[in-house]
């Protein structure tokens, strides 16, 4: 038995998913040659071999196994007429039965509870015990998955895949930056290192798929919330503005309530001053002194690859902005209320309304023109902040500070997971990769693809750790990736 086949079978057995699916299948009069376990094994072998998600490839992969494995898995059985190998019709039949068993009675574009439980169990089983607690931080992102079906003709709604719908995706290719596609959204949560923590293998821990007329952010929330229920605590959730721009009730509040700490980019519409609370300015998820310089409140995140000078200037402004922030005085109570302190009372700035602060050193900013009619945040030492203030934008680090930038850079773990799913050299989930219609079979294949990706990541991780240990024994530092980005200044410099 090959190492890969052994790993796949171990994952399937640890997850218990195959057995649960088998129990859902209708009882047949005759013995069913192809079990759910063998079919899923074949699907994963197909993907591990870099083949597309076609049932013919599944059969080929199973038939390519050694004879002993074929007999053990039921690919070859002895009939009265002699040995019988698995046929394509049997493969297709079992696949159809499984899809029917895991689908909703009335397909609506969202996965059924049984299908989601299958995905959760399979992905969780693909993470070795040694890495389960290495990090609680998850990077979340969604990507497009086109269906094999052609979209409905103009003026009609009928097509081969009625669950699919039109969605929007952003491309980095030349031409228009955004385009429409017909299919589904795949949302996933990939493990990433803790803030300032050591690297961890970036394994995909949770996924869900849904039609494009379902909000992928809302679809991922129950999947993530099921983790604490399963004894897996939520840590940092790093996500882009697509998630952060959702209603607070749809994304931020349920996750925060489950113990997650959000690290997210803010949508341009959510950045900057957004009202006041007791006179303090609500901006970027924090409360600021009413006399904060307006230019600082408009501070946005740095673009990727910003030069060092811009980064230093940005960090200086972010540090200046942080001095005007009303610092947290207490943690959240059971109802989500907390108290914050005036920055002058906390000794971060000098303000004539706090005479004691005017004795502080002049390296602090000074409020030059305090408000004529001081609001509560200026007259009280602390104010109480209810949970609905900045509910959508509140997060772990001050946005867009240097700490936030470093923490948010971990989100690329999810991008890497998506990119490997679309790697033309291995598994490419572009249109035609899977020619089965409907959400359920596609989700089954996607879950298997992510399990195989996790195995690839683990193999590469182990190899890198081994290489690092070997280099350390030789007194060499760990091998680092060569810088690929070439700046204009470098190009302009003489050779």
């Amino acid at each position: 038995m090959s190492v890969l086949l052994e790993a796949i079978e171990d994952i399937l057995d640890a997850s218990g998913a195959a057995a649960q699916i088998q129990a859902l299948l209708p009882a047949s009069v005759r013995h069913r040659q192809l079990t759910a376990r063998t079919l899923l094994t074949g699907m994963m072998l197909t993907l591990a071999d870099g083949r597309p998600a076609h049932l013919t490839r599944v059969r080929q992969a199973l038939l390519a196994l050694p004879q002993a494995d074929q007999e053990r898995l039921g690919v070859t059985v002895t009939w009265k007429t002699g040995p019988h190998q698995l046929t394509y019709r049997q493969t297709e039949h079992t696949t159809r039965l499984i899809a029917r068993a895991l689908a909703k009675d009335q397909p609506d574009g969202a996965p059924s509870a049984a299908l989601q439980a299958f995905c959760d169990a399979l992905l969780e089983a693909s993470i070795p015990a040694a890495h389960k607690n290495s990090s609680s931080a998850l990077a979340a992102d969604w990507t497009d998955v086109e269906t094999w079906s052609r979209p409905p003709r103009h003026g009609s709604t009928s097509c081969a895949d009625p669950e699919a719908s039109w969605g929007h995706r952003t491309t980095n290719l030349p031409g228009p930056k955004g385009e429409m596609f017909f299919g589904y959204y795949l949302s996933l949560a990939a493990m990433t290192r803790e803030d300032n923590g050591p690297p961890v293998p970036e394994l995909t821990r949770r996924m869900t798929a849904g039609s494009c007329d379902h909000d992928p952010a809302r679809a991922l929330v129950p999947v993530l919330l099921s983790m604490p229920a399963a004894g897996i605590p939520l840590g940092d959730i790093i996500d882009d503005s697509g998630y952060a721009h959702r209603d607070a009730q749809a994304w931020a509040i349920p996750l925060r309530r489950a113990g997650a700490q959000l690290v997210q980019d803010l949508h341009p519409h959510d950045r900057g001053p957004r009202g006041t609370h007791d006179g303090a300015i609500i901006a970027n998820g924090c409360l600021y002194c009413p006399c904060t310089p307006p230019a600082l409140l408009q501070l946005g995140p740095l673009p990727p690859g910003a030069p060092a000078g811009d980064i230093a200037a940005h960090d200086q402004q972010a540090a200046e902005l942080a001095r005007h922030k009303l610092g947290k005085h207490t943690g959240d109570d059971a109802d989500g209320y907390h108290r914050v302190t005036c920055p002058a009372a906390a000794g971060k700035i000098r303000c004539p309304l706090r005479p004691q602060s005017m004795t502080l050193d002049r390296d602090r900013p000074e409020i030059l023109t305090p408000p004529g009619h001081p609001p509560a945040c200026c007259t009280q030492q602390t104010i109480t902040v209810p949970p609905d203030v900045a509910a959508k934008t509140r997060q772990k680090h001050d946005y867009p500070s240097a700490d936030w930038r470093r923490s948010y850079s971990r989100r690329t773990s999810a991008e890497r997971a998506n990119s490997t799913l679309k790697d033309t050299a291995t598994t490419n989930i572009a249109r035609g990769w899977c020619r089965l219609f409907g959400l359920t079979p596609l989700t089954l294949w996607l879950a298997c693809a992510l399990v195989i990706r996790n195995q690839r990541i683990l193999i590469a991780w182990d190899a890198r750790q081994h290489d690092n240990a070997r280099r350390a024994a030789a007194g060499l530092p760990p091998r680092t990736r060569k810088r690929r980005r070439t700046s204009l200044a470098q190009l302009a410099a003489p050779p």
Partner: protein
Amino acid sequence: MTTAATQAYIARWGPPSVSVSAAGFARAAVARCGDLGRERAKNLLWAAARLGDYGIALGMAAAPEVLLHPSVIERFAAHSPGLSPSARRTLRTNLRFIARRVVPALRPGDAPLGRERAKPPYTPAEIAGFLALADAQPTTGRRMRASALICLAAGAGLTGGDLRAVRGTDVARRSGGVVAVVRGGRAPRAVPVLARYHARLLEAAAFAGDRLICGGRDPHRRNVTCPLVSSLAGGTGLPALDTSRLRSTWLADAAALIGLPAFMHAAGITCSQRLGDIIATLDPGDEAAVVALLGGSAR
């Protein structure tokens, strides 16, 4: 250069090392500073532009009311990175100048107050008059104490607590001259006495013995010298006796002895602060050398 030419220079000022917004702020501020020469305008423009770059980077509005606020100028001068101490002082002075002209309401000018100068030394004739008055005192004890006061103040530069604490035994002939030892106070030291006061001071010291040479029992009593000074008031013929002026007299005599005026003239120094910093690192020499320098017979 005419004012119009300076205004034209200000209007076109904009070096590439300064951001556009900071240069704009600097031009607007310096243009409101009134009549300036070109060099002065250039210095002010640089100062304002540096302030502008600093403030704008911290998110402040590029407005004179904000950037030229005394608090912002102080923060810039004290905490802006990459400036030498002398540059900080120069920039602050220039920025305060601009602020006084552009936003005078933020920091009203200080009321002019008189400045204390060094007190003028007594002339040799006046010193001789004081010594004659001391000799004319009715009792031996008062004669001795008055002589000691003048000799220690004008001959060794002692005043205040140093002067009151000297006992007869603290004055001795040694190291080739006469030395008065200051034991307590802020700067304990041995001070050579100018030669022309040796005989009088030694006589007074012998009279005092281990008692305070200027009288009194407690050196911490502040008005010990007051009766002596009042007894030496010479009427209209002499100025009032002031121990500070006596010390000034000693300083002038000592400076002349060591050739300090010639040295400072040659060095182009008018203020001695930096000279003090330098001398603090030098060896003051042993007592014999000091006595030879300051306690010689030339004066």
